[in-house]
């Protein structure tokens, strides 16, 4: 009996450890038609519960799920707070009252990547080990982080030809003040090569974030070249 108890406890611990590891090993992927580079946990939940079919920037999105498996279970647990059975019941209630559709469900990470790559607005999740060629990865921002603003329009800075030729690069650190409407109001250099910083400032001034309740200041880092 003792052995059985130990075995069960061990199995339980392994299950929890495994689920924890997987929750951090998920990446959210999107079709290239999706403009955003990041998505909040709240947005993710609303999209997968069919409460929203567009993101803050107006891009149409549609959820794509895996049928089962550890990645699927971890995603549901981490971001939707539901079991697969509860989620199926939820979708069926939508379907049988005319208020929604069954989302696409696929068998594997590879199928999800392939479907997301070819379907406008598709949004899915796969394990971090999966090759994600042809789709973009969205960074996930935890729910409840009120200070965070989602970057919805990003303009890449120009890498001055001379510095590039001389292989002079590095990271420029900026302090960015964002208005309540989401526009960049002010950019200050915190560190980095002054010439690269000028280029970075000029690009960052064109960035647009999601709107918020008030003006905030965030720190952004921009890498020129391949070495920090």
């Amino acid at each position, binding site marked *: 009996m003792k052995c059985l108890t130990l075995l069960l406890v061990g199995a339980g611990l392994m299950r929890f450890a495994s689920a924890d590891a997987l929750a951090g090993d998920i990446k959210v992927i999107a079709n290239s038609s999706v403009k955003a580079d990041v998505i909040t946990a709240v947005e993710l939940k*609303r999209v997968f519960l069919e*409460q*929203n*079919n*567009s993101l803050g920037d107006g891009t*149409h999105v549609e959820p794509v799920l895996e049928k089962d498996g550890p990645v699927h279970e971890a995603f549901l647990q981490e971001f939707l*707070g539901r*079991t697969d*059975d509860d989620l*199926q*019941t939820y979708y*069926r*209630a939508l*379907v*049988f*009252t*005319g*208020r929604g*559709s*069954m989302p696409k469900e696929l068998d594997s990470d590879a199928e999800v990547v392939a479907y997301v790559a070819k379907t406008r*607005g598709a949004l899915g999740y796969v394990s971090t080990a999966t090759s994600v060629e042809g789709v973009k990865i969205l960074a996930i921002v935890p729910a*409840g982080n009120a200070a965070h603003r989602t970057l919805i329009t990003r303009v890449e800075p120009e890498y001055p030809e001379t510095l590039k030729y001389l292989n002079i690069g590095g990271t420029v650190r900026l302090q960015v003040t964002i208005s309540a409407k989401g526009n960049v109001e002010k950019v200050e250099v915190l560190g980095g090569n002054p010439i690269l910083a000028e280029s970075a400032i000029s690009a960052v001034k064109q960035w647009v974030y999601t709107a918020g*309740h008030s003006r905030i200041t965030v720190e952004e880092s921009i890498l020129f070249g391949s070495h920090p």
Partner: protein
Amino acid sequence: MWRRTVVVVFVCLGAGQVLSNAQEFKLFDRTVQVHGFVSQGFVYTNDNNWLTMDTSQGSAAFTDFGLNVSAPVTDKLRVGAQVYDRNLGQLGQYHPSLDWAVVDYRFKSWFGVRGGKVKTTLGLYTDTQDEDFLRVFALLPQSVYPTDLREATIAHLGGDIYGRLSLKRHLGEFLYTAYAGHRSDSIYSGYPYYFSSFGAHITSYGGLQYGADLRWNTPLKGLLIGASRMNEDITGKGSAINAFNPGAGLVPYSEASKADWINQFYGEYTVGRLRIDSEYRRYWRNQELFSGTSESFADVRGWYVSGAYRICKRLQIGSYYSRYTVTNVVAGALSAFYPPATDTSLPADHDYDKVITGRVDLNKFWNVKIEGHFMNGYGSGPYPNGFYTQVNPQGFKTDTNALVVRTSVYF
């Protein structure tokens, strides 16, 4: 009827299993989805016959099925429709109906409109009451969701506005729905059947319905509370035996609402594998009968508390206590035939139901439920609630125990 039921069930079960893997296709570059369900029940009662079935002998006249097609037309516009059919004892009798047919345009998450024949939002389960596979119980609490009277609240021909409003400072979100439309009961539904016990033959029953629902997803994770209101203006027409001169044959009959409303309050709490629901519904009804020569005042109150727990992926259990009371006073010419019924302690004016249930999911698309009902009272008084005199000609006993077995396939 038995043979017909068995054939329908097996055809639908087979179709359900086959279709479970083939439920969408492309049309004009849009994905069209097809979904359906079929459900078959068996009910056995120790005494009174229940829900218009011959349950004291054991009855399987408890079949229903639905089939829907829906598709997004644009990113914001979707269309769909569902056909529903059922046979519940003397009700339905396999006459299909258009359950819903909706054009839905969602401008923003906080504002959308839908029109057509729309499922009515009233409390937690009015719009999904036919789909038993969405919950643990084989029968919803009959005090609030009387399955014999489903058509009274199930849908309206009209329109809704709806939306979802996020609240600041992590205060959760509000979901609202407001609607107006026309209700039209089938002549095979509960009210016409009830009236037939008085020798009345109803040819049309329905009218205006309008109301609203507001629910709050509270900051406490898993807790939802809400309230619904419905107003109605219902007219019934047909013919009936003249109570004062029964030998004179049928005379034209009509009834009309003077006041008709429902207030419903509800809460739902989900934590882990446990789900707890509770609802209270009050239905007030003041009608003119026989072209205004008489008037009735009915006050129907029902509430329940239910709990359901998932033991493992395939097995869930649940229990609820459901309490229903009704009072009725008739004024005018008919008052001589219907003395006031205001004592809800009498079994004719209440139905208290204790229920236990087990649900087994055989696979992702098929479940079986076994449910026990232990009822006190039959609430047959002036307003139907599952117990009808036509199928209980010998009179009613105070207590009824019922065994319900129900299986559903869906895709």
